[in-house]
């Protein structure tokens, strides 16, 4: 046990130098991605997710057509190199299916699907790298991608993972921490304070649950701020670009170019 990493040391620091309620570094890139109607590259710590959104567009399959609202279709793809252990996950993998199902059920009540009867919205989630908080990163990225696609939402959905070490609540866990402490993911709609998702993968004492849950909801508001700023920045950049006569969303730097070429796969 001597070499094991301490989850929370006597000084109140976690193994990566954060304190209990500090979230990891967040980077958001909303530049346009291939043919997608909306996209978001979302990085939280070392977890990196790219979400692209297509639609609303006409439903391709009869069977998936719903007469009074849009159908939401979520597909998840986890890159083989996303964890240290190279493992190929097939599309039917249980974890992938669960992740997709959780994203779908989170967004179904949030997207104003009734505006688009008989159409479909495709959400592609590409996991590029993972180090804990995968579901929450995927949800945040999806929110951002949907907004950039111009799909009307009732509210943002902001998700965060949290856990309890002994009796101490902690936010935004790394893989190392997830392996050790009971944890949950909470997705909130910050304007109304409504919860659209709670998942609990391990048993948790009910008293603790309340505390962790409350803190996760608070953290949702902080994330909201961060996400809104990113959207605002993009909007003003767009406005500036239009004013300067560039086509909307046109890449203005080299990274953007690369994105563009990688887009169709």
């Amino acid at each position, binding site marked *: 046990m001597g070499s094991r990493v301490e989850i929370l040391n006597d000084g109140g620091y976690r193994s*990566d*130098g954060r304190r209990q309620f*500090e*979230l*990891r*570094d967040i980077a958001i890139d909303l530049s346009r991605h291939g043919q997608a109607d909306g996209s978001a590259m979302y990085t939280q710590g*070392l977890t990196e997710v790219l979400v692209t959104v297509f639609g609303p567009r006409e439903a391709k399959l009869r069977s998936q057509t719903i007469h009074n609202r849009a159908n939401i279709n979520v597909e998840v793809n986890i890159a083989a190199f996303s964890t*240290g252990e190279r493992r190929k996950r097939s599309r039917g993998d249980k974890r992938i299916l669960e992740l997709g199902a959780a994203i779908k059920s989170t967004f179904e009540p949030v997207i104003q699907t009734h505006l688009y009867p008989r159409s479909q919205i495709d959400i592609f989630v590409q996991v590029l790298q993972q180090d804990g908080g995968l579901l929450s990163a995927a949800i945040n990225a999806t929110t951002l991608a949907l907004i950039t696609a111009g799909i009307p939402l009732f509210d943002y959905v902001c998700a965060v993972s949290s856990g309890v070490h002994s009796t101490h609540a902690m936010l935004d866990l790394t893989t190392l921490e997830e392996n*050790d402490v009971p944890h949950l993911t909470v997705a909130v709609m910050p304007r109304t304070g409504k919860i659209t998702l709670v998942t609990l993968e*391990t048993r948790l004492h009910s008293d603790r649950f309340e505390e962790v849950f409350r803190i996760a909801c608070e953290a949702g508001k902080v994330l909201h701020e961060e996400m809104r700023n990113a959207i605002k920045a993009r909007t003003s950049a767009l406005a500036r670009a239009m004013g300067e006569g560039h086509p909307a969303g046109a890449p203005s730097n080299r990274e953007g170019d690369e994105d563009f070429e990688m887009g169709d796969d």
Partner: protein
Amino acid sequence: MVEITIRKRPHAEAVATQRKFFKKTARGKVVKVLRERYLREDVPCGISHCTICPGMPGTTLPTSGGQGHKSYPHGHFILPDTNVFLHQMDLMEASQLNAPVILLQTVLEEVRHRSLPLYNRLRALVKAEDKQFWVYYNEFRSETACIRLDGETPNDRNDRSIRKASDWYKSHISQVFGRNPQNISTLPTVLLLTDDAANRKFCDAEGIPNSSVRKYVEGLKDATSLLDLLSAAGETEIEPTAALVAGRGALYPEYMPQANLVAGVKAGHLHQGHFNANPYNYLEGNVTVPAHTKPVLLIGREHMNRAVQGDVVVVEIFDEKEWKAPADAVVDQETTLKNDDPDESEEEPDDENALAEERERRALVRENARKQPASSERQPTGRVVGIIKRNWRAYVCHIDSTSLASSSATSLSLQSVFATPVSRFLPRIRLRTRQAPTLIGQKILVTIDRWDATSRYPEGHFVRALGRAESKEAEQESLMLEFEVPYRPFGKAILDCLPPEGEQWVVPPKDPNNPAWRNREDLRDKVICSIDPPGCQDIDDALHATMLPNGNIEAGVHIADVSYFVLPDNPMDAEAAARGTTVYLVDKRIDMLPALLGTNLCSLRPHVERLAFSVIWELTPDAQIVNVRFTKSVIASKSAFTYEEAQIRKDDPHRQDELTQGIRLLNSIAIKLRQQRMDAGALNLASPEVKIHLDSAETSGPIDVEQKQMLETNSLVEEFMLLANISVAKKIQETFPQSAVLRRHLPPPKTNFEKLQDILLKRKGMKLDVSSSGALAASLDKCVDSAFPAFNTLVRIMATRCMLSAEYFCSGSVGRDTFGHYGLASPIYTHFTSPIRRYADVLAHRQLAAAINYASLHATLHSKTHVEQVLSVVNRRHRMAQMASRASVEFYVGLALKSRGADKDGKPKEVQEEAFVIRTFRNGLGVFVSKLGLEGLVLFKREIKFDAENYTVTVPQPKGKEVTVAVFDKVTVRITVEKDRNTQRGVVKMVLVEPVDTST
């Protein structure tokens, strides 16, 4: 509400903030791991009145540093490196050493990595009220974080990191407090303390104030008393002996580099395991390694290569043709090395030294000369090539008076002396002290500091004296130290967790709204009683049984509801978890929980209402379980019986009252339960249990020794406790499959029995079938010699020694197929019935309470890692407690022998007892005196014939006759307790009287 923020990580500094490394998974795959590190500006320096660092909680370091060192008149802080804590912990703990200490995260983590016991001592120091420690998390502050450079060793990186932090403190202090230029010259010094000369050179070059530990201590006011605490380790560069020693050449092979060891073990050509010394022969040891069923034998000093009992070592195994069998002679280090001189710092190896070597060589040659052992007896043989981890601690020792150069009581000259550890598993330790003459005849605590390749003995230092040898106080304390029993009185924070009513606490009047009564069944009308040994104060279990109208029987076991009083995660709980178990010494009980609980509130005394946790079964008359339920309850025991009282009551046909009928009912079920267990293959094992009668009227005098008696009622209680434990185990395992607290007993490897099987076959023509516990039980039953009633018990004792010990484990941590309890032949088991004295039971209570929805389970009991961690402590404490009790009994048996062996005038009288031979040696016999539960050695002075194949020794008699003694033979021994002249330690000596007298 707490403040939630997002930490920003500067991406430009990815090198400093990301760490990439490769790790091998349990399945053997190599994976890439990427981790982040967030560097901060807000890690506080810990110095009071610092205007830069954010608010600092807790006690801080004084602004002007520590006073009282002559080299640092303006005050100073000490900043020790890792080795200072690894080698000089006793010094750092000394109360005279009171300078403020800056403890770096780098150092703290390295200590944790290197030695958990030292880490725990260090953590205690950080929290100690009379110490001023500040932990500075240097690796998280941007100015002091360090990354390993290409080609830099982890050690060099750490040293650099420590220097960097030291330098930062220096400039931080001048930045904060040196604004006024006049102050600059009077700022306190931050002194880097290290015994590494190379590191000090770097410091000098970089302008970092530094000092060796010795030089620092010499400048303190209390230098003289502190210098004795200074460990011998880490003085390499100051002592002139280094050069001398080097000139004399190494006595032991050097260890292989750590990286080669690790690689060799991984590749499979080297093997890792714990070193075990042979208590009969100090020149032999062994190491159990995963690759071989038999342990790897290490013969001779050179091959043991400075390994000490408990060290984690790496061995190389020789070619199979060089494999040997374990020694069959007794080699005692005190006699062999009687005259060895502790002072090796003479220019030339003196005669005495050469003599010791010669004697040892002869002992080994004698060993090697023995005829080629049968292949079945040979076992892997090898040598130690390196040490992964030392497990050195403080050892209880005696000073060997013959090793003193000057024994004049007033002599204060520094001398080298030998300390002989009480434990036969340890080598003599050489230490240098000025107090040698005053320590003669005392029990003292000594720690080992180092063992160089050039030194025959390990070097240590004196920690403190425990008192006169053989005084009860000193013996008691040394026992507790030797077995690491925590014996401090309970602190205030712990006692504050007890109910404020104290001894006056009672079960509140019945009221469903009162928390004590919530969801509790009222079982006060049940006719419950307890059955315990006489004088039992902590009654933690009680029973009842009644006939049901349908002809079935209701039986109940009621256990004190300890978890009602001991709440998770408070100081009392933490202390109980650390103690793990109550320890029973002959004359002292070291409680796991404060006595108020054990002997009062949680003791199910008769005629008093008590809170309990009940297990109630409906059983058929054939003892088949129809159903079982668990409930928190309130009971009122109707009587507290001793085993004997209960037995008499049960057997008295005139008694027809409810209590007696209950006992009879319990007994009839218990007999059937026992039969069922035996049919399933449970073992009926024996251990030599004796009882010590303490004469309370007389403080010094014992005492009589008596063997424990087993009554039917002992068995009655035992069966129901087993049944309760099994029922609870099933329930908590079902409810918490990942984290249930269980207990198991792994089946012993068959090879463990080989020797015993061979002895039985050759000496008695009996076969021992060890294919399963049932087969073993059956064949043990057949090991009967009508002429020799004690034979069966003796075989059972010997069989017990071939087994593994039972252990606690977390259900999620091991395979489902390894849950079984071999000895009890139960597929699942736990401990539930003694929560007052065993911590595992407290955990089982909490899990059971959650399983029946009485309470929610504390978060920590859901965590597999947490449960594993707690149980590994409890397992260790449990083992240590057993050894401590045994040693305590041995000490009193020795006292009893001494008093029995003296007549009215105090003249020695002879004690003769019947004994059985359990082992034969080339030069002696191992015997067991069952009446005293005492094992001893008989050594022959005459030449004897030794037949290892047939386990006999043949002793020539004067008139050409011969007498042969074999294993299992009944003999008579004379037992005396002699004081070892050198160490003043009482030693039990046995001499054979029948069939031959070996005293002549």
